């Protein structure tokens, strides 16, 4: 019987096409959007991990508590030893040290008098040692718009906007004013090797990137660092692995009650990224849920329309001695078939689109220029196994639910009216 009915549905395009299209569209959107959102959230997390949070970050507790003031007097000490130990204890991680400093950049004229001054965020990473991947990790190489990367000590990169504002070009000198680790006044002159444009307002306003050894020397931070960042070598943040790492770290490295002993923070614990991650995870299901509701309503109505179109068919079937329950059941089976077809198409197309977006991405660097957050400039979808069912089952459920609701009309049908109804 059901085979027979399916044959009928497939022949009657107006009956099958609309529901299939509705389901396929809904499923497509669910699959594609959740892949895309997942990708975006991951990109955002990733870029934050690269720039600021690491997959895990190690700081002194005191530094962590006053992080906004960039308090280098509270920095980690004996970092060389710490790094060696970390590398031995956690060989699956890559550990890097960084120094942050606030200050002023002073641009002198030819006589050494101040020509202009601006607030600056100083970031010191390993730019110069052979094989360092920090410039790549922080996208510094790609963001280098004028001049070149620093090639030797005493060279630094500054924001392109800043350079424009004060008319600084590659080869000019600038002086960074600030405070040493001990609180005394510090100034160091750098030769500008080139300029940077990240497409991010905060970084582009006034930033200076230097090699960490120069910063150490200028800030009196011998063997000290603002922070040590750890990255999983496979490049993927896994909060469960991070939690295990953190637990182990706390037991081995952290001294309870010592403000200067190192503390570890997971990516998810920093800058609200945990919420982001949770959002990324729930985005798919939220999306699917919304689509199930919306699709069900649409399909309910298409089901009702279909029911109208099939009014006489149901009438004849009742007259032929089919029970209402059986007619109802068969409409549900039909819905399952429609749902499988529609969801299958939607999942297929959605996966295809997601794969495409994973590979090629959507370049929105033009739009993000003036956004303060750390945002990636190319958005990519991420294809996960979940995509195979995240749209499929909701699509199926919606179709069945829609039909189930519409099908109740069958029970309202009075057989006593059949002759009258079928006469017209």
């Amino acid at each position: 019987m059901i085979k027979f009915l399916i044959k009928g549905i497939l022949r009657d395009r107006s009956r099958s096409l609309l529901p299939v299209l509705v389901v396929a569209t809904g499923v497509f959107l669910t699959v594609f959007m959740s892949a895309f959102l997942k990708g975006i959230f991951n990109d955002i997390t990733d870029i934050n991990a690269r720039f600021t949070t690491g997959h895990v970050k190690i700081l002194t507790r005191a530094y962590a508590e006053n992080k906004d003031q960039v308090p280098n007097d509270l920095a980690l000490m004996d970092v060389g030893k710490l790094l060696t130990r970390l590398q031995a204890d956690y060989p699956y991680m890559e550990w890097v040290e960084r120094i942050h400093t606030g200050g002023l950049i002073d641009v002198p004229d030819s006589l050494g008098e101040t020509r202009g001054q601006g607030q600056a965020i100083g970031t010191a990473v390993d730019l110069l040692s052979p094989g360092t991947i920090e410039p790549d990790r922080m996208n510094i190489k790609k963001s280098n718009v004028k001049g070149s990367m620093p090639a030797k000590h005493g060279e630094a990169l500054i924001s392109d906007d800043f350079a424009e504002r004060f008319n600084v070009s590659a080869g000019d000198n600038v002086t960074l004013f600030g405070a040493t680790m001990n609180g005394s006044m510090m100034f160091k002159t750098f030769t500008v090797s080139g300029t940077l444009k990240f497409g991010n307002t905060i970084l582009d306003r006034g930033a200076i990137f230097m090699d960490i050894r120069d910063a150490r020397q200028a800030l009196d931070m011998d063997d000290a660092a603002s922070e040590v960042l750890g990255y999983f070598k496979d490049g993927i943040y896994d909060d469960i692995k991070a939690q295990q790492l953190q637990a182990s770290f706390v037991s081995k490295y952290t001294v309870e009650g010592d403000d200067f002993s190192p503390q570890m923070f997971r990516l998810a614990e920093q800058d609200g990224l945990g919420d982001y991650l949770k959002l990324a995870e729930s985005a798919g299901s939220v999306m699917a849920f919304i689509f199930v509701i919306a699709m069900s309503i649409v399909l309910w109505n298409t089901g009702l329309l279909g029911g109208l179109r099939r009014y006489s068919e149901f009438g004849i079937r009742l007259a032929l001695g089919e029970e209402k329950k059986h007619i109802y059941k068969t409409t549900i089976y039909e819905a399952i078939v429609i749902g499988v077809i529609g969801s299958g198409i939607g999942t297929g197309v959605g996966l295809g689109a997601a794969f495409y977006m994973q590979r090629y991405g959507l370049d929105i660097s033009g739009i993000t220029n003036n956004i303060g957050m750390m945002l990636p400039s190319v958005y990519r979808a991420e294809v996960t196994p979940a995509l195979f069912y995240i749209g499929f089952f909701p699509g199926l459920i919606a179709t069945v639910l829609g039909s189930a609701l519409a099908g109740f009309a069958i029970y309202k049908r009075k057989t006593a009216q059949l002759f009258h109804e079928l006469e017209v």
Partner: protein
Amino acid sequence: MENDSIIKIEKLIKRFPVGKTEFTALNGISASFGRGEFAGLAGPSGSGKTTLLNIIGSLDSPSEGDVDVLGNSVSSLTHKQSAKLRNRHIGFIFQTYNLLPVYTVFENVEFALLLQKLSRSERKKAVMDALEWVGLTDKVKSRPSMLSGGECQRVAIARAMVKRPDIVLADEPTANLDSKNSHHIIQTMKNLSRELKTTFIFATHDEKVMQYLDRIISLEDGKIVKDDVKTDSKPQDHVSI
């Protein structure tokens, strides 16, 4: 005839609620029908013909009185039981043929058998037999939209007959057909009634139909005013099935 009657109607009353009052559509009908009878309900519009067919077909139930169809008291049947009774024993033919447009002629007839547990080949044989009875074996693959009105009604007859029911109820089956087709159809049904011992009950205004009937029950205002049993119904052997 009383003894082997398969439909027994006793003091049947059918009322319909109309607003706050009730309208009596059938008012004390008593009659019975034997196996293989070829009978018709005649009477003016609104006299209760369709209502009576409905109740015999267990599509509706009596308000009072009793209707017994093949040993089943219609008023006490559940939805499931009445569906089963229709499925096994009663065929319906409508004024508008009510074929399903998405299915072929063959499938439309086959449809009536789908609820019965028959093998594919048994079904196929039964459908081809039924189509042969109505002379449509050459149209098995056609869709209803390609058929003439007469052909459509012949498909409907095949659909009603394919399960070899005991009773066929036909409400104005010729109302949409021209004279030649009407004769053809009614003759076909009459032959089938003879051959398969099927009881046919028509509701009709059509004089052409009436001349074939063995028995005409005239209704007026829900009452039987005349119950004519003819002995010399006109044989129409020149139309073969």
